């Protein structure tokens, strides 16, 4: 580990102010000091542990699915287990990794520091949200072990109210997870409104905060509807009320409307925080202020708003009129406009910047490629004539994995590397980091690109067997999945090794101007040695080092 390359800018590290209190990791000792902590940073670390565990579980389930699809007929598991496995994979990844991932870990840790606050507005509520998360996760996984579910993560009625599997505990588990999300969102919104430190106006906030703010608004407005609809499914399943059951006059399509009213905005709950990480990474590693700060901030809010008006594009083949489908299709393409504004702004930021190819930056470049690719196919499937052909095929699977894995997971990993020195005070091995980032990209492309071709050729999603002529593409995809899993494992090992043996990082190993880097790493319990006043923006790279430091006091 001695050959870890020294980051380009280390001048800040040498003049690190002497912390007046111990860092948050050493402020208290013992298991109880963690389990009862009200420090947002410690709660973030507890979320980190729980969510990485979920990611590993979800990844193992994905590998089982891919291994099963290696041959056209049975490979390792039977059809019933296969149905449970893809449900388990979807439910775990969506509710235990993608939705809480970036906000609960990096948002929890970084947002108060970026606002110059000493903690979130409601620390006890924050701790409660972690316990709710753990309870919800246990119910969900317990239900999965006890009876499983074979409905897919979408729980479509009438099947979900008739299946003998454990839909009820899983529905209740997801309801509790939703409650956990809502409490976190209340905390973020209140903190952003009321705990910005002196000198920090709305339009001096780092863009990661804007992304989390937009995300929180979506969580607050969409999650309750999902909570309601899953409780209704649980009621239908356990008490047979028949709210969505045609036998009693219920309408199954109504379920789809309510479900997607949440679950489409939920896609933006997953991707907006990822875009926040991207904004931070680009500016730091090209040492440039964003090409347009306002464009990114307003586009975040625009996506949050328009995301509520697009749910119908999941239902083009569910008996929707052509006129309605057309309107939903056009509204969906607005998301493409806002996303394109962001993409052009990020590339504009790179222009004439002094770019450094560090691990987070490699994740950014692969993110940019995958997100644009996923986004473009998204525009294509928002067109009803094309969607009718691709609906429920592997084309859709490939599309949303390009956004969810290529977008959210890649940014998550970028953030994990970018903020690692801040969170743990140590540097990871840069060479291994670069290798793992490249591996993740190659593995990903190899896994999901063949799935576009499979879907276009007509292979339906969620099927256990397929015609033999699809096998070579499936083999490619499974090979990619193994490579991806290997690269993820390498990432995990690299970061775990760095946790113990990594070189000490200074306060600001990347030479970033963003506020969280202006305090020691790891930060003291109250984030800054003294409550700071910010008299410059988070991306003021045109100031000299000295000026930039002086304006944070």
């Amino acid at each position, binding site marked *: 580990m001695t050959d870890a390359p020294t980051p380009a800018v280390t001048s800040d590290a040498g003049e690190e102010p002497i912390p007046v209190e111990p860092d948050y990791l050493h402020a208290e000792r013992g298991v109880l000091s963690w389990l009862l902590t009200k420090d947002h940073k410690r709660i973030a670390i507890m979320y980190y542990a729980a969510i990485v565990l979920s990611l590993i579980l979800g990844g193992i389930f994905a590998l089982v699915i891919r291994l099963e699809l290696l041959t056209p007929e049975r490979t390792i598991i039977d059809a019933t287990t296969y149905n449970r496995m893809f449900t388990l994979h979807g439910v775990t990844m969506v509710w235990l990794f993608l939705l809480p991932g970036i906000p609960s870990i990096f948002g929890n840790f970084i947002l108060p520091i970026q606002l110059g606050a000493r903690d979130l507005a409601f620390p006890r509520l924050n701790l409660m949200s972690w316990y709710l998360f753990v309870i919800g996760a246990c119910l969900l996984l317990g239900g999965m072990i006890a009876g499983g579910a074979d409905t897919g993560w979408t729980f479509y009625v009438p099947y979900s109210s008739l299946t003998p599997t454990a839909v009820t505990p899983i529905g209740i588990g997801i309801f509790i997870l939703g409650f956990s999300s*809502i409490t976190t969102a209340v905390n973020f*919104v209140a903190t952003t409104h009321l705990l910005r430190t*002196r000198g920090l106006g709305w339009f001096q906030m780092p863009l990661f905060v804007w992304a989390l703010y937009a995300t929180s608004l979506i969580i607050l407005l969409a999650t*309750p509807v999902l909570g309601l609809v899953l409780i*209704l499914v649980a009621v239908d399943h356990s008490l047979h*009320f028949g709210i969505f059951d045609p036998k*009693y*006059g219920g309408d199954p399509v109504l379920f789809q409307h*309510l479900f997607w009213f949440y679950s489409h905005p939920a896609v933006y709950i997953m991707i907006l925080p990822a875009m926040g990480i991207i904004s931070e990474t680009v500016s730091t590693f090209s040492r440039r202020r964003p090409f347009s700060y306002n464009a990114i901030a307003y586009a975040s809010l625009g996506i949050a708003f328009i995301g509520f008006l697009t749910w119908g594009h999941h239902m083009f083949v569910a008996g929707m009129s052509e006129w309605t489908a057309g309107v939903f299709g056009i509204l969906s393409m607005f998301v493409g406009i806002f996303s394109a504004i962001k993409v052009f702004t990020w590339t504009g930021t790179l222009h004439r910047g002094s770019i450094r190819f560090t691990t987070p930056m490699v994740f950014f470049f692969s993110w940019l490629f995958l997100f644009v690719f996923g986004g473009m196919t998204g525009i294509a499937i928002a067109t009803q004539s094309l969607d009718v052909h691709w609906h429920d095929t592997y084309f859709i699977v490939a599309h949303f994995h390009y956004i969810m894995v290529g977008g959210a997971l890649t940014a998550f990993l970028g953030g994990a590397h970018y903020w690692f020195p801040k969170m743990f005070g140590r540097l990871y091995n840069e060479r291994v980091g670069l290798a793992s980032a490249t591996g993740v990209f190659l593995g990903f492309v190899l896994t999901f690109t063949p799935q576009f071709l499979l879907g276009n050729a007509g292979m339906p999603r969620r099927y256990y067997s397929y015609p033999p002529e699809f096998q070579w593409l499936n083999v490619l995809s499974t090979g990619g999945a193994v490579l991806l899993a290997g690269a993820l494992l390498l990432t995990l090992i690299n970061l775990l090794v760095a946790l113990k043996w990594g070189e000490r990082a200074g306060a600001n190993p990347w030479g970033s101007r963003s506020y969280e880097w202006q305090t020691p790493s790891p930060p003291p319990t109250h984030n800054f040695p003294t409550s700071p006043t910010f008299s410059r923006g988070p991306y003021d790279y045109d100031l000299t080092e000295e000026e930039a430091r002086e304006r944070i*006091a």
Partner: protein
Amino acid sequence: MSASPDTPEVVDPAAASPVAPGLGDQYDTYARQHRARLFGMWVFLVSELLIFAGLFSLYAAYRAEYGADFAAGIEHNNATYGTINTLVLITSSFTVAAAVHAVRGGRTRTAARLLYVTIAIGAVFLVIKGLEYSTHLHEGFAPGPYYSNTELPQFGARMFFTLYYIATGLHGLHVVVGLGLLAFVAWKAHRLRYDEYHHVGVEMAGLYWHLVDVIWIFLWPVLYLMG
């Protein structure tokens, strides 16, 4: 730059109050802490409203499908019960508002009494609701497959009563939670743990109770009057 942020120049009367609770590390003043809590409550209430918004859209969609059957179901609902309960809840909203007013003026004992009155009125609401449920069940208006009334059209009226139980049940759950919150702050007021500077708990419980009331005011017409 020289003035330390931790020593405000003006003495904060809220900090000098004998009932002052702990000031969170992240706040500079009590005023800000109170504001944050109230703000957080408002944000949470918006989220709560969306649960009911989902339910109202469900109602609207089914009503569009089974208009006449829904009207027949509503005709069968006892508007007297519904209307009395509306008056009961509005009265309790008035008393809780009076309690907030009293505690803002430093009259904590009065506030405690008013909060107890509010809890009693809230309990009356639940009793009336219970009477109504038992009448319905007696006539065979039960949700879903347990529905056994034969007078009314089958599909739509059954769906109306299923939604009726879900909507009033979810609202009833909010009434129970609200009563719990009110009981907590009433007990604290009773022990004089509030004064004119520190009473954000009473304000928050009051806000929640108003939400319960407002939701009912919308449930009342769609379940009892729009026949």
